[in-house]
């Protein structure tokens, strides 16, 4: 039960910078089901923050609060240090938060360029699509992310492999000067080589100074790319671990039997004192 050296409690700041996204005391219930209870979460620029937890731990609910799909019952969302209210995915996009969903959210019948610009097409005064411009910029974006496996950016997404599709989905998310990219199980459906491809891409995003949140069941993936790991259990945050100072075993323990740092109703509990 004693906190190990890698155990960082509550609002302790392992990196000096202020968090780009900070969630404070987020609670959300659906009828009688308490999905989230007083959850704290934060991520900084240049950091890959993994969000792990068992099924039903509240990972998706937490992310949907950031996406504006759910609105939290209580708690505060701070973006770049300022409190914000996110009511729709468009609000999130305006702030610079982009999402890459588990089921890809690409249109199979459209080509890579068309998917990259879906919903934000460049057009001229005659409502004509600026195809050359979009094609050129897509090529640049993919190049900057070292996505080199796609033969033609004018081929339909249906003809791409799983890893290539996921790469397109990620590239689509970072194209818009986004500051924070949230990836929901990006490697769930991929093979070994494909997973590797996507994880490389995730690392590159952080290297380019973006904040990345990686939701994953796969601790192997998490330990490969994440700088920090937030563990959720039964709708509560169990703690934040630094990759360098923790072990998979410890994280697994936290996922399955972790003790929340805070329990609603009880102000502060033992782990706080232990550190």
């Amino acid at each position, binding site marked *: 039960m004693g906190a190990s050296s890698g155990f960082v409690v509550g609002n302790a700041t392992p990196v000096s910078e202020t968090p780009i996204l900070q969630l404070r005391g987020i609670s959300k219930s659906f009828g009688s089901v308490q999905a989230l209870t007083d959850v704290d979460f934060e991520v900084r620029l240049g950091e890959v923050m993994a969000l792990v937890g068992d099924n039903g731990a509240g990972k998706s609910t937490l992310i949907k609060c950031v996406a504006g799909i759910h609105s939290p019952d209580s708690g505060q969302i701070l973006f770049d240090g300022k409190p914000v209210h996110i009511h729709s995915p468009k609000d999130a996009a305006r702030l610079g938060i982009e999402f890459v969903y588990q089921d890809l959210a690409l249109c199979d019948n*459209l080509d890579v360029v068309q998917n990259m610009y879906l919903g934000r097409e460049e057009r001229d005064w005659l409502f004509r699509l600026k195809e050359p411009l979009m094609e050129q910029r897509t090529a640049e974006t993919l190049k900057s992310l070292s996505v*080199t496996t796609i*033969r033609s950016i004018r081929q339909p997404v249906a003809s791409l492999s799983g890893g290539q599709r996921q790469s397109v989905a990620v590239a689509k998310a970072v194209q818009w000067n986004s500051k924070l990219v949230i990836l929901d199980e990006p490697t769930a459906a991929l093979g070994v080589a494909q997973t590797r491809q996507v994880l490389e891409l995730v690392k590159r995003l952080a290297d380019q100074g973006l904040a990345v949140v990686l939701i994953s069941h796969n601790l192997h993936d998490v*330990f490969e790319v994440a700088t920090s790991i937030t563990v959720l259990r039964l709708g509560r945050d169990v703690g934040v671990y630094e990759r360098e100072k923790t072990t998979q075993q410890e994280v697994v323990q936290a996922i399955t039997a972790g003790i929340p740092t805070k329990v609603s109703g009880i102000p502060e509990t033992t782990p706080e004192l232990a550190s």
Partner: protein
Amino acid sequence: MSSEVDVTAPGIGLPEGDDAEAEAGLWRRAYDNLRSGNLGVLPIVIGLALIVVFFSYKATNFFTADNFNNIIVQMAGLTMLAFGVVFVLLLGEIDLSIGYLSGIAALAVAEFQLAGSSHQYPGLVAIAIAVGLCAFIGGVQGSIVAKVGVPSFVVTLAGLLIWQGVILQVLEVKGVIVIQDAWINDTANHYFTARVGWIIAAVVTGVYALGTLGSVVSNRRAGVAIRRPLLVVAKVVGVAVATFGTVAVSNHANVPNGLPLAGVLVVIFLIVLTFLAKRTPFGRHVYAVGGNAEAARRAGINVARIRIIVFMISGGMAGVGGVILAARLNSVDLNVGGGTLLLDAISAAVIGGTSLFGGRGEVRSALLGALVIATVSNGLNTAGYKTGTIYIVTGVILLLAVTLDTIARRLQARSGR
């Protein structure tokens, strides 16, 4: 245990892109397309040629300039409906109401030009009212589909019954309404003089060539490679041959002589709707919603708005078709909008290669499909066959076209494209 976790996965390098692929020649691509089943418009053009050859032998007065003009006017109304069907099918929806909706347009246009009535308007105003009314009805039906979530099959099936009922109720009393307005009748009965025909051909070819040149220039400026340059040239030449050829044949006809306005209207709508579908954000969003509505929604596209507008287009095009069909007969009677019109329009879009499941198809496929249906129907009529035969043959062609398309797509899936 924790120390055994290998943080770095086994070294699997990223596969390299193949630059040589980008420079593969036209023939190589054509061969690849053929092998992988990506046939494009080729099967339907070949099919059409075979149909024409067959009926030219079967009926003496089929392969004539007069009959060429006939077919253009016969197919114009149907093609307009089929244009609308393409948009609805692109969404993966269906609109069964367009047959009788075109009847409503015919009724409206006849009613609003009625001489001596309190609501006699100039022909063009009557046409605008009729088309606008149909677009509005389409919008209402689309709203029920998009906002309430009732399946489009049910909403438009109800529409089919309702508008048929309205037509019967109105015309039971009035019998037949004769259309006397010249503007309205001209949509199906006006033929341009030879000189105007040539000018139209030159304008169409010029606009197409300029448009192509424009996109080539802007591609060059952006440093984007021009794919298949030979094909671009071939397309411009093809359009020139088709337009000038059409005018040449139409000018050669005796009764009626000259290029029919109805054909020009079809081409105008073909150009405008193709532009809408392929060159504007709206068209892109239609394809996106048909391909993956959830992805479209997450990309910030207002899916309900797209659906409603598409049903308005479908209704509006039914209206345009209805006006032309009524103008051809110079009257509106109890049979208006009925018969095989609805199923012919859907068949036309599908024969042309538009998928019933959304996200795949072209506006031009409606024209090609309608051309096939109209040619077969005209050919069988000319050769002296009865209506039953026409239905059977059209059915067989529909089945053949879709079977061929399905096989082609399975080949495509197998070759991983």
